[in-house]
């Protein structure tokens, strides 16, 4: 049953992505992107990653989609023009995909309990984090305690991104500023 649900959701994901590729209307594409994130979060639940599903649902399906809608509201949601130069792109994609398939064929099966990923540090975290940290959720104890510096780095990255956004579109968009200043030169800042 686990396998069946997983496979069905993955098939729906592939169908959604193909629809995104073929769709020319940007708002419809954004809707489908919301579905993509929801589906991906459902797949994460099936693969036992509940915390990741939580984050993906709120961040991927929520914030990303709304940010894209906001961008479309500012920049206009004109129908996308027909893409040029499809053939070279298809060749690159097929070649890269083939190489990746070849590379993946050497990995252990999904769910194999003897895979290298589950034989080293995994045991330590599962067996000792409950007594060492005292939090039942292993993901939380690893995130906040064992790998706390990673999380600190993540905060630094988000801070930098926020600074970048403020530098780019700080006090309203260019159009709003132009309207406020009454000139239409376009090259403000």
């Amino acid at each position, binding site marked *: *049953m*686990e396998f069946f*649900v997983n496979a*069905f*959701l993955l098939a*729906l994901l592939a*169908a*959604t992505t193909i*629809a995104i590729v073929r769709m020319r*209307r940007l*708002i*419809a594409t954004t*809707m*489908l992107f*919301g*579905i993509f994130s*929801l*589906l991906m*979060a*459902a797949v994460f*639940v*099936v693969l036992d990653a*509940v915390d990741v*599903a*939580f984050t993906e*649902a*709120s961040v991927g*399906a*929520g914030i990303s*989609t*709304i940010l894209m*809608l906001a961008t*479309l*509201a500012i920049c*206009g*949601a004109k129908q996308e023009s027909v893409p040029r130069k499809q053939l070279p792109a298809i060749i690159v994609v097929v070649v890269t995909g083939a190489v990746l398939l070849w590379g993946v064929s050497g990995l252990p099966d999904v769910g194999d309990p003897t895979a290298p990923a589950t034989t080293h540090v995994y045991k330590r975290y599962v067996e000792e984090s409950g007594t060492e940290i005292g939090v039942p959720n292993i993901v939380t104890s690893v995130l906040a305690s064992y790998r706390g510096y990673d999380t600190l780095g993540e905060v630094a990255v988000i801070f930098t991104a926020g600074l970048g956004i403020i530098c780019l579109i700080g006090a309203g968009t260019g159009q709003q500023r132009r309207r406020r200043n009454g000139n239409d030169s376009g090259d403000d800042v």
Partner: protein
Amino acid sequence: MFVVVTVALLVTMGLALARAIVGPTLYDRILAVNTFGTKTVLLIAVYGYLTERPDFVDIALVYALINFIGTVAVLKFFESGEFAHSWRERRERVEAGDTGDDD
């Protein structure tokens, strides 16, 4: 028993996805996304019971909220986006009692 519910939900998700892809109008797509979201909420709640760890209902709760916010955000887009002008015009016309039959 939960298997029946899971299969029913998966089938409905497939149907809703088909409607979202086919369209044809934007509102059909929004409706399909909304339905799809509700089905995902249910699927995650039921899947917890199916795998005998029903502790993860919180995620379904978050989904339910996100789904509603998403739908309202999309509709808000019509009030502020590039369609805003024609949309407001039509709203005023409809509210004035004109049903828009003459165009």
